[in-house]
């Protein structure tokens, strides 16, 4: 720490430097804590087959409804399946879903939003009308309707959520594009007669990524929550494949006598969500350019 300059009240200066340190430190802690949480759960799920866990789908009625213990860290459900093993295996479905859906949507939304914002005019008006409609429409109804068309199941969930999620990125990107389009380095590129793809992709796009990346962290959480909700409603991942939302649904009928079946998978969702949120907070600070 720098010593207090001459002529300055020492206490006040100390207070100030501490404030400054706290603000800076928090972002770094947030980023690494988030990465640690997500990495831990992802590694566990990826390595699931090699961890010597019980078969997540094997029923064992002798051990049904066991509360958490050393043998069953998260207890067992009404069919005697090991909830811990199911939670770990479910990560393979949920995390992959969250990440794939998010980044496919990001690429689609980023491209559409960038084009819409850069070229403006009728194309922009039409695209943005659609985007507004998709965003303001209750997403669950839209996804359910798509699931109704495609048929329930993981494929329906993938298509449905991407069909909704891209619009958020499109709107975000378009807004950023409109702002950056007025910046002088873009004007300069235009007066130099650069081709439109060059201006959009080489000059503008790298500057649009920040907001999208930060938002994608929240979006991963949202998408995992959506898959869980779909499965909970019986329209996502079908039993016996383990999935967090499906497990919560399975536990509901035994809520009175076996609280752990529903609550523990939910806690894992919350933990994953917090992990991604922390990464998002850290990234927002890291990538901030306002500090001139």
């Amino acid at each position: 720490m720098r010593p207090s300059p001459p002529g300055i009240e020492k206490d006040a200066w100390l207070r100030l430097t501490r404030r400054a340190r706290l603000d800076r430190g928090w972002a770094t802690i947030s980023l690494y804590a988030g990465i640690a949480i997500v990495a831990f759960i992802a590694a566990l799920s990826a390595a699931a087959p090699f961890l010597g866990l019980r078969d997540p789908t094997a029923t064992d009625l002798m051990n049904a409804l066991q509360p958490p213990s050393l043998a069953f860290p998260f207890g067992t459900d009404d069919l005697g399946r090991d909830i811990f093993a199911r939670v770990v295996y479910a990560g393979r479905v949920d995390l992959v879903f969250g990440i794939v859906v998010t980044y496919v949507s990001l690429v689609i939304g980023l491209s559409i939003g960038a084009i819409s914002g850069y070229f403006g005019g009728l194309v922009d008006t039409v695209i943005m009308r659609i985007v507004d409609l998709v965003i303001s429409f209750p997403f669950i109804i839209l996804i359910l309707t798509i699931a109704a068309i495609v048929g329930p199941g993981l494929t329906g969930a993938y298509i449905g959520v991407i069909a909704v999620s891209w619009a958020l990125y499109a709107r975000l990107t378009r807004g950023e594009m409109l702002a950056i389009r007025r910046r002088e380095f873009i004007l300069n590129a235009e007066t130099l007669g650069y081709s439109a793809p060059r201006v959009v992709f080489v000059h503008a796009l790298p500057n649009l990524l920040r907001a999208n990346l930060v938002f994608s962290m929240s979006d991963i959480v949202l998408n995992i929550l959506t898959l869980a909700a779909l499965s909970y409603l019986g329209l996502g991942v079908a039993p016996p494949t383990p999935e967090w939302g499906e497990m919560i649904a399975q536990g509901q009928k035994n809520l009175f006598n076996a609280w752990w079946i529903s609550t523990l998978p939910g806690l894992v969702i919350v933990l994953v969500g917090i992990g991604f949120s922390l990464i998002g907070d850290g990234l927002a600070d890291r990538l901030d350019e306002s500090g001139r």
Partner: protein
Amino acid sequence: MQTASSPTPLLAARDLSVGLVNRHGAFLATNRVSLAVDRGQSLGLLGESGCGKSITLRALLGLVPHPGEIVGGSVTWKGRDWRSLSKSEIRRIRGKDIAMIFQDPASCLNPVFTIGDQVTETLRLKLALKAKAARELARDLLDQVGIPAPEERLRLYPHQLSGGMRQRVMIAMAIATEPDLLLADEPTTALDVTIQDQILTLLARLKERNRMAMILVSHDVGVVAQNCDFIAVMYAGHIVEWGPTHDVLRTPRHPYTRGLLAAIPRLEVSGGRHPLQTIAGAPPTPGELPEGCPFRLRCPSARPECATIPVTLDRKPPDHGSACPIVM
């Protein structure tokens, strides 16, 4: 250090230091600044961006935005220390005895209330007027600051007025209580030059009429030169030169002031593109100041001992003082 001619100046700051926080940590935006104004006097705080002139002005009113704070020195109002005043006393002084106007007339009026609402709010709170009387005085005030058709303007929203008109409304609100001191933070920077001229003429007239003191913050030497009795030149949080306007402009003593004045292109010397004298380098980033004299890395007269000298004015105001012991 006493900085005005009378024993108890209207407002005085002594060794005032303000600390702020940015991404790189805590830093001193204002470093042991002492200044004072007396009734009827005008003081210009002149400096480039980031020199701490605006934050000094805010600190005089106790308006340093969190997480920054005043970390040293004191401000006295009519001889009374701010710290000895209660919150309600401070609030009474603000806006009644001391008024302030700001740089951006586009954002210093609340967009969702009419001009009338905002002017009368001040009058009712500060002068305890009833609604009707406040309305009448408001109309009168707008008239005084040169707003045509004041009755109609009172019904308008800020976005329906031009920048110049908005600044006039701000001035009307500021002079409503006939304050002893007006603080003006770059009041014309956002305005066109002919409008700037109108606003400055108006301020000069009001100051004369109300025997009001004024502290004017500006980056424009011309604006300060035309409107202030005294000039305080700020550099990197320090006041490096102080004196009567005429003296400072005629015979600048500090190397920074000299460099600054030489660097300004003059209207009178048209054409030719003769090279202007320049100051090497760029103003320092707040928080990355050298030890000793803050100007020494850009100073043509710098010597090794500049790294250790304290930054203090060599003569007491109202005399013309400089913080440079090397250049006489």
